[in-house]
């Protein structure tokens, strides 16, 4: 207990008396975390953009106007049974007619033709959304069976299949690129932290050997550096937390315009706070502790 108390005391004493070196170490950790968090933000943007593109894709099934409710419900429950399907929006004949009229409100010829008909010529419509664009084909294939041939008049997917395929390829590539870039930045951050700690330990190599010559055990020498690593990691996480808070307050009004979501970044960080803080604190702590222990090894051989 006494030894632990002394280790903590020496750690804080070292930090206070090497304030320049301590600040520099924290600054580099903050810069590294900033670059990592920039990538997290880019990932959030990418995912949100991909999601909003995917949301805009759907398949419309136009039913024959003579199709009965039983037949439509059967198709609905059949399609709804697919795990890939996330949403089914059903519009009855009246709703389809109202929507059509709204779309054609500037086209009096079409509206008067409708009036002349005297009855609603449009059948009900079902809008199907799936998890991934590639799943639409599966749904369409499943509907290409003889028993539904007379009920479903048309499917829009055929016309947009190429576009959907293209979007799928682009979104997959964008996500892969973001992951690749994140890994590259993580590697750069790892190397910079490793070398920062190595330099910090190198500047104290003589002190380390003196402590050993005076009779300190290896852990008595290592201890303060481990405590300092913990302190630097917590300090850098707190600083980065503050910086991100300010950045999100400034950025979120703009992201709200683009993605139609208020507090997108702030909410993302708030919802994933334990994971984000845990991973970042854990990684920085692990890196700083391991690099100081490794860097110190040669100077402890006295």
């Amino acid at each position, binding site marked *: 207990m006494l030894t632990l108390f002394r280790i903590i005391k020496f750690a804080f*004493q070292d930090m206070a008396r090497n304030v320049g070196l301590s600040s520099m170490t924290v600054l580099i950790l903050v810069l590294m975390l900033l670059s990592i968090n920039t990538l997290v933000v880019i990932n959030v943007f990418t995912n949100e953009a991909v999601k909003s593109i995917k949301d805009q894709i759907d398949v419309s099934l136009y039913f024959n106007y003579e199709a009965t409710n039983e037949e439509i419900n059967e198709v609905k429950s059949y399609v709804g049974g697919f795990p890939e399907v996330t949403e089914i929006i059903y519009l009855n004949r009246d709703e389809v007619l109202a929507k059509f009229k709204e779309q054609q409100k500037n086209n009096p010829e079409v509206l008067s033709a409708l009036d002349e008909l005297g009855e609603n010529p449009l059948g009900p419509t079902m809008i199907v959304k799936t998890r991934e664009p590639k799943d639409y084909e599966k749904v369409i294939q499943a509907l290409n069976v003889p028993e539904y041939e007379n009920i479903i008049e048309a499917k829009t997917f055929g016309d947009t299949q190429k576009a959907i395929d293209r979007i799928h390829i682009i979104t997959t590539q964008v996500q892969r690129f973001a992951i690749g870039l994140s890994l590259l930045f993580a590697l750069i951050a790892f190397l910079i932290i490793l070398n920062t700690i190595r330099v910090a330990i190198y500047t104290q190599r003589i002190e380390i050997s003196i402590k050993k010559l005076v009779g300190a055990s290896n852990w008595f020498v290592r201890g303060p550096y481990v405590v300092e690593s913990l302190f630097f990691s917590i300090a850098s996480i707190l600083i980065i937390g503050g910086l991100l808070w300010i950045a999100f307050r400034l950025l979120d009004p703009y992201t709200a315009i683009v993605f139609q979501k208020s507090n997108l970044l702030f909410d993302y960080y708030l919802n994933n706070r334990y994971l984000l803080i845990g991973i970042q604190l854990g990684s920085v702590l692990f890196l700083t502790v391991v690099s100081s222990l490794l860097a110190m090894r040669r100077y402890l051989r006295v």
Partner: protein
Amino acid sequence: MVGQSGTGKTTLVKLIIAEEKPTEGNIEVGGWDITKIHQRDVPFLRRQIGVIFQDFKLLPKKTVQENVAFALEVAGVPHSRIREVVPKVLDIVGLRKKVDSYPHQISGGEQQRVVIARSLVHRPKILVADEPTGNLDSINTEEIIEILKRINEFGTTILLVTHNREVVNRLRKRVVTLHNGKIIADEKEGKYRL
């Protein structure tokens, strides 16, 4: 212990404090065979031997008092005992007024006195002084030798490694002469003969 440069005097000191390990032969310190000492026992050995280095080896970011106290703190000595012992030892070496100074704020002679205080603080049975006056002028040399003589009179064995002829001749103590790593003379009340 006297001998020309490169003859193995500092190597001997390093062997005694287990900074180096012998390739052959045996080393015994106070009845403890340290020839094959385990790495984890080295700190315990060093806490029983006081070592004074030519280049002082003081911790630059610690004050005089903290440097001396550090030798006790590594050994887990309670705080109350440290507060009692450190001022006394600093009194012996005449540095009571410099307790809060950092090594760079005091002279070479004073720094060496801090080193002596640090090596004495855990009451070692043997004090190894490797060229303790090598970086000092004649006045400071005189002072350091006087302190070492006083410590010796209190019953601590001192191994003084030096090539300062004047110091050796004036001390009139046992002189072991080393040449090419071998003892070539061992006189009970010897003189510097190289």
